[in-house]
């Protein structure tokens, strides 16, 4: 035993030192036992719950959004599959070299650069400002367990080849995203609308229903918004067991399948929609070309069956390309749209409030006849201008004020048909406000309001569109509250021809004419024809809905002070409109086409039509900013409403052109061409039906 000092080696170890060692170890083991008892027995439920949470995951299954069809079954909104290549940073390999290899190969496969920009730049979904490496780096610090979109909308073949390799590339995946597609794009965008991400304000509510923010989308405009609850369907759910990689292993509970959204069939006829869109757009563009300036900036047109309220076409121009919102809402495009003075995102057909102008004379006409202000045959002098005393109080001396006609020469002597057909301002001034001995008592502002409401003004019509405007038919109380001034006699004259404070949407103007065309029966205007399920079963069929019949339903209020300028005092009595009144106004509108304001424009039209034009002076922000609001020479919008055939109207249209200057020459042709297009399409359908 070399090297050992034997005597030293023979001294035994102190036994107590070994016991002390064993004692310390035993004490530690007792401590461990206590700790294990605490964790495994006392806290068992808590840890077991966490273990269950680890392995179970509730997955929301997105429902298919309902498809939108036109009345002939043409698709206006559908869902398309789109493939996105994603990387979930948390599931990437631990080894930096392996990650690097995946990054380089993935970049080569998708065409996204390996490195681009810096991690200080914003991570835009599907954006191309960053390389693969930067996107992964940002996502790693931000949300490592959520997939980051590396490349969006890749071809199916590429998606498949990435999916194949995802076995060797942990963390890399392919996401199938349903994309809303609108085959008719901007032609129907103002009606259909678009989708967007679930906003923070609705997150709680929609999460409770099973929708997932950043995955599921909801309607942001038009019918997509209005019918969102019908279209969106019901998400399904799965409770699954997953491993640490998030891989789904099995269902723990029976899965609940998602219920697809219901499909919607619209009353729109895409052919007429297309025709109306190009007619409106071409008319505006050709006038702009003629004037060699962008004078007319926007317009709207609606075509409706007055008998049922079915809207066959509804155009608001300029519109927007809703397919550009399919994936996400690009900020630059959205900003451009919201800052555009023509408001492309607004459906002007129902959402604009515009001075109605002469088309509002239909209200004055119906009211004046029904109240006996004039008789149809009564001849009234219509010089180029009249002077009346403007008073703000009953009995006030007042000041003289001139009211001019658009036709400076005047029309001479006119009976009712002549007055309406030629749209004589002076004729309707006198009817509305009264004039000396000729029209001893005018219709007055109060009765003007009640007749306007009966024809569809001053209230929303219930069209299936968000943000429908109310419009405005003012009365003395409104003026006191909003303008801080008494109603004046002059205001009544102005309102009688649809100027001043009177505001209306194109749809309201359309409905006033439709009510007259339909012999006093106002149908609720609608875009919804049917609701159908995925198998084509009709869940809700179209039933025309009558709002009221002004010749049957007592809607017209009586007033104690019918022609006064003080606050309107109702007597509480109600009455109807006499059928002959409607008939006479119809004749007046027919006269406009035959010998009045629309005669030249409708000279060669074979189908008997009736109509009314409007040239509505305006002074809005845009006009004011351009210095166009010169007193007595304001710019004006162009209006035309028309229906046909005269004997049995089946189509009523309204055309509106912003800053169109003259109703007959600008809006008139649009109205005529849409009517012609309607009858052409009808002939084609009839021929097709015969051929079968």
């Amino acid at each position, binding site marked *: 035993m070399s090297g*050992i000092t034997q005597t030293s080696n023979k001294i035994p*170890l102190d036994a107590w030192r070994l016991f002390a060692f064993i004692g310390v170890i035993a004490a530690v083991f007792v401590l461990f036992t206590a700790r294990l008892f605490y964790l495994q027995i006392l806290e068992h439920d808590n840890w077991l719950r966490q273990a269950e949470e680890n392995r179970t995951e509730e997955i929301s299954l997105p429902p298919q959004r309902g498809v939108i069809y036109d009345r002939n079954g043409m698709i206006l909104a559908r869902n398309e599959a789109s493939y996105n290549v994603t990387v979930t940073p948390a599931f990437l390999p631990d080894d930096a070299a392996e990650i690097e290899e995946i990054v380089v190969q993935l970049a080569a496969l998708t065409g996204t650069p390996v490195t681009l920009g810096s991690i200080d730049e914003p991570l835009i979904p599907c954006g191309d400002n960053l390389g693969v490496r930067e996107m992964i780096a940002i996502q790693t610090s931000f949300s490592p367990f959520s997939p980051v979109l590396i490349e969006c909308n890749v071809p199916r073949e590429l998606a498949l080849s990435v999916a194949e390799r995802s076995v060797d590339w942990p963390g890399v995946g392919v996401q199938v995203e349903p994309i809303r597609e609108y085959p008719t794009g901007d032609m129907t965008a103002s009606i259909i609308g678009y989708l967007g991400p679930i906003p923070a304000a609705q997150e709680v509510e929609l999460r409770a229903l099973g929708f997932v923010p950043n995955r599921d989308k909801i309607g942001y405009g038009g019918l997509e918004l209005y019918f969102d609850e019908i279209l969106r369907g019901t998400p399904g759910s799965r409770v699954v067991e997953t491993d640490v990689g998030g891989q789904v292993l099995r269902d723990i509970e029976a899965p609940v399948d998602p219920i697809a959204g219901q499909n919607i069939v619209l009353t729109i006829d895409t052919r007429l929609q297309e025709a109306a869109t190009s007619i409106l757009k071409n008319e505006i563009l050709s006038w702009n070309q003629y004037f060699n300036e962008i004078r007319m900036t926007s317009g709207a047109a609606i075509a409706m069956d007055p008998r049922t309220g079915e809207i066959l076409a509804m155009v608001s121009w300029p519109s927007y390309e809703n397919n550009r919102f399919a994936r996400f809402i690009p900020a630059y495009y959205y900003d451009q749209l919201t800052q555009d003075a023509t408001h492309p995102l607004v459906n002007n057909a129902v959402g604009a409030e515009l001075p109605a102008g002469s088309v509002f004379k239909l209200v004055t006409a119906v009211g004046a006849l029904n109240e006996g202000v004039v008789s149809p045959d009564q001849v009234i002098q219509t010089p180029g201008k009249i002077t009346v005393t403007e008073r703000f109080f009953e009995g006030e001396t007042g000041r003289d004020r001139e009211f001019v006609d658009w036709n400076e020469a005047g029309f001479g002597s006119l009976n009712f048909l002549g007055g309406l057909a030629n749209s004589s301002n002076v004729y309707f001034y006198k009817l509305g406000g009264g004039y000396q001995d000729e029209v001893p008592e005018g219709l007055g502002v109060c009765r003007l309001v009640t007749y306007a409401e009966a024809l569809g003004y001053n209230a929303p019509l219930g069209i299936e569109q968000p943000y429908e405007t109310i419009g405005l038919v003012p009365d003395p109380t409104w003026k006191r509250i909003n303008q801080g001034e008494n109603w004046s006699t002059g205001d009544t004259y102005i309102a009688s021809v649809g100027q001043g404070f009177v505001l209306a949407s194109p749809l309201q103007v359309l409905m006033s004419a439709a009510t007259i065309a339909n012999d006093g029966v106002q149908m609720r205007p609608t875009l919804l024809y049917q609701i159908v399920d995925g198998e084509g079963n009709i869940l809700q069929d179209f039933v025309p809905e009558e709002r009221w019949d002004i010749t049957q339903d007592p809607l017209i209020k009586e007033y104690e002070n019918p022609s006064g300028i003080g606050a309107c005092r109702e007597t509480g009595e109600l009455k109807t409109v006499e059928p002959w009144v409607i008939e006479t106004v119809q004749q007046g509108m027919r006269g406009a086409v035959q010998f009045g304001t629309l005669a030249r424009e409708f000279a060669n039209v074979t189908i008997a039509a009736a109509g009314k034009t409007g040239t509505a002076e305006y002074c809005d922000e845009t006009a004011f900013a351009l210095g166009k609001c010169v007193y007595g020479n304001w710019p004006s919008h162009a209006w035309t409403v028309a229906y046909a055939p005269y004997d049995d109207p089946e189509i009523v249209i309204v055309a509106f052109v912003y800053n169109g200057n003259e109703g007959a020459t600008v809006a008139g042709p649009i109205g005529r061409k849409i009517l012609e297009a309607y009858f052409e399409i009808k002939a084609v359908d009839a021929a097709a039906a015969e051929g079968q």
Partner: protein
Amino acid sequence: MRTAIWRHFDFWLLGAVAVLITFGIAMIRSTIAGNAELIELDILGRQITYSLAGFVVILIAASVDYRLWISVSRILYVVIALLLLVIILFGGTEAFGAQRWLNIGLVIIQPSELAKITMIIILADYFARNRERVKDLAFIGRSIALTMGLVVLILLQPNLSTSIVLMTVWFALLWASGLELKHLAFFALAILLVVAIGFPFLEDYQQQRVINFIFPDPEARFGSNYNVTQALISIGSGGWLGQGYGQSSQVQLRFLKVRHNDFIFSAISAEFGLIGALAVLGLLFFVIWRCVRAAQLSQDAFGALVAYGVAVIIALHTIVNVGMNIQLLPVTGLPLPFISAGGSSLLTFMFGIGLVESVVARHRALNFS
């Protein structure tokens, strides 16, 4: 002589070790199920091979007189020091950020594992030869120098946990050799000082582990705290009897990390519950006690210190590993003796058991000569 060896051979110790290793292999099988990466490395097959080799090592070590190791211990010391130098200078096979492995043809050996047993033998010899000088501070200083020779090299790898093991072996052997209590107090102070001064010199990840342990981030969803949290969930979900072999979702669905190795105790606790965990702890305590018993029976101080030294490293590994699993101690890479997957450490422990058997087999209970 030959029959005498086997008469005193501690079959209880060997039996306990065999049960632990077998149970360990069964647990490794459960923990790597469904993990393609680990199956590809044939962790299970390697563990079985190493354990079979280990029993051969035990038998050989038991049959060789433990005193023979004294003559080769100095050579081993120098060889290991050189191997460690080679690794540091020329780079070994890197695993988990540290160069600890030396690839020698077919076998990958970890010199730092060999260093543990070598250190025990060297120090046991040193202390046994100089029992009467144990109260001499200069003598103690030389033993520190002897220890630091390897510790410094291992620290440079960097391998903090093995360095701590070697320092503990030194201290435990010094204690058993008769360290004065006043010196004990002095060393306790010195260790505190070393820790305080040495902390800034640790590698970032080592500092981070300690910081994470003392100030855990409750929001952490992955990383070191994630591992520890998952370990606690696994242990806690076990209850009294566990979820059953191969049945724990934490283990089988891989929420528990490094579950075949550092966190295998959590896997045992999850699948066999408190009863299973205590059974494993009990068996390990039994093994430690049998080693200490061998130390008491030893006919000389050298044999006693060797057997005691083996008890120390088994106890230290068990405490550090289990303490980490139940979050009483920070995360370190020390395996659970006999159970964690890993050939080098298994062979080290089994060689240690062989030495203990050699000591106990050669004790002379009735020695009248």
